[in-house]
């Protein structure tokens, strides 16, 4: 079979080449040069070298070898840390979802009581979302001390940034007609939101909350590295003490938790359409 020729070439051979192939004008030429310069200098800046990578391979192989078989020695401790990690993710997400609801209402154009509140809510959500969760964790470790509570607060703020945005979007996209029908019979704003907006946005909000839980589970693992509770600290200690067999147990445990939460989330999403 003959593949069809590109239409511009076959239909009108005398036409100018597509813009992609045209000689670039000066501004885009300069932009390309700058872009390539940036890539080159970034390669230099990161010390990116295939040589060093190849030299490091035996080390990786050695660590991988020492990781196997995983050590079952401190399984009880690892198990407890894993449970703590999941608790952090669960409570952080739960509190975050609850707090996202009023914030999302304020951040929804047709539901907000005032334009100023709309902009304030949008800005808050954007701020929470933009600052990485590890930085929230550092701040809360200083504020409330080392331990899982700091991590839970960091996850809560991160969840508000995530859910606040998508809840508001879900509410914005709901059909206005039933809401107008309730407004027409004199229902108050909170009744319209509870009885018409939330039921319509619920499937989307539930899916968002489950994604938030998955995201929180993954990040609660890392938060331990800054002392904000969870299994991360165990992993760090094992690695620093060169106990690679123990580290592999922890990594496997994390893998099991993340996959379990993802599977449970997928199952729940399928059931709530």
């Amino acid at each position, binding site marked *: 079979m003959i593949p069809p020729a590109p239409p511009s070439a076959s239909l009108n051979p005398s036409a100018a080449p597509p813009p992609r192939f045209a000689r670039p004008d000066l501004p885009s030429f300069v932009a390309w040069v700058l872009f390539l310069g940036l890539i080159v200098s970034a390669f230099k800046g990161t010390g990116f070298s295939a040589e060093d990578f190849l030299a490091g391979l035996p080390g990786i192989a050695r660590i991988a070898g020492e990781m196997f078989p995983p050590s079952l020695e401190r399984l009880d401790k690892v198990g407890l840390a894993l449970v703590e990690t999941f608790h952090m993710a669960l409570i952080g997400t739960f509190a975050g979802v609850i707090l996202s609801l009023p914030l999302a209402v304020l951040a929804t154009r047709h539901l907000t009581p005032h334009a100023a509140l709309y902009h304030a809510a949008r800005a808050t959500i954007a701020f929470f979302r933009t600052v990485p969760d590890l930085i929230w964790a550092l701040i809360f470790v200083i504020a409330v001390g080392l331990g899982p509570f700091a991590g839970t607060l960091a996850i809560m703020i991160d969840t508000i940034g995530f859910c606040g945005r998508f809840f508001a979007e879900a509410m914005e996209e709901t059909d206005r007609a039933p809401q107008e029908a309730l407004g027409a*019979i004199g229902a*108050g704003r909170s009744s319209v939101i509870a009885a018409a907006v939330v039921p319509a946005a619920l499937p989307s909000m539930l899916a968002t909350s489950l994604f938030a839980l998955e995201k929180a589970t993954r990040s609660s693992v890392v938060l331990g590295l800054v002392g904000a509770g969870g299994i991360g600290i165990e992993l760090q200690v094992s690695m620093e003490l060169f106990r690679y067999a123990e580290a592999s147990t922890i990594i496997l445990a994390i893998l099991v938790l993340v996959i379990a939460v993802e599977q449970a989330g997928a199952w729940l999403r399928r059931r709530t359409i």
Partner: protein
Amino acid sequence: MTPAEALVAAEAPMGAPMRGAPVEPVVLAVEDIRKSFPGGRRVLAGASFAVGKGEAVALLGANGAGKSTLLRCCLRLIEPDSGRIELLGADIRALRGARLRAQRARVGFVFQRHNLVPRLSALSNVLHGALARGAGAAAWFQATAPKRLRAEALDCLDRVGLADSAAMRADRLSGGQSQRVAVARALMQRAEIVLADEPVASLDPAAGEEVMALFAELNAREGLTFLFTTHSIEHALGYARRAIALKDGRVAIDAPRAELDPVSLRDFYERSS
């Protein structure tokens, strides 16, 4: 006045329209309502009419004649530019906030479609009528409603012949059933007057007749005041005691059924378009 004279009156731009006397006491009095939309032409240019207690009145007019606008103005869902609207003894244009909502609560409103919250049951949707009576959170969902309210909502469903479908989700109801649930919600509201904007325009003829017959029955049996817009001359003559027709933003015909006939109304439509 004969229909022929009515048409003469309709022809004369400034001529006094034919007046149908409303039954006393008047529950809705519209006086000299004007409304232009920004950038658009003038939709209402001094429309006046009145509806008496227990009346069934049809509002006719070509597409874009301003029927929906007029009906919405009666509840201030659209703000008229000028004029006076007295609804159930209150100057609706003078009301704000809670007092406006309280006045709206006494009026049922049935839209052409999308009256119901799709993901909730028929019973929950009927229950929402109680929001008009200040039931608040108790009337959000059937599952959390007190027994007394649920029983009353079920009774309202029974009065529209849908007691069997109480648990059915609103988005699984047929078009005719949905409109009957919307009527049941108005009953739950204990509305003193029901405004309906083309309540059967998206239904098939049989379902349309059924819903119109329901309105007529509630009007006859329970004395419900009923103002509806329609493009169906048959419905106007069959289910209303009086018909009002809009043309050029004003009331061109306002006559009791006895003085109207299909030919003159069809003629009116032809002259309007």
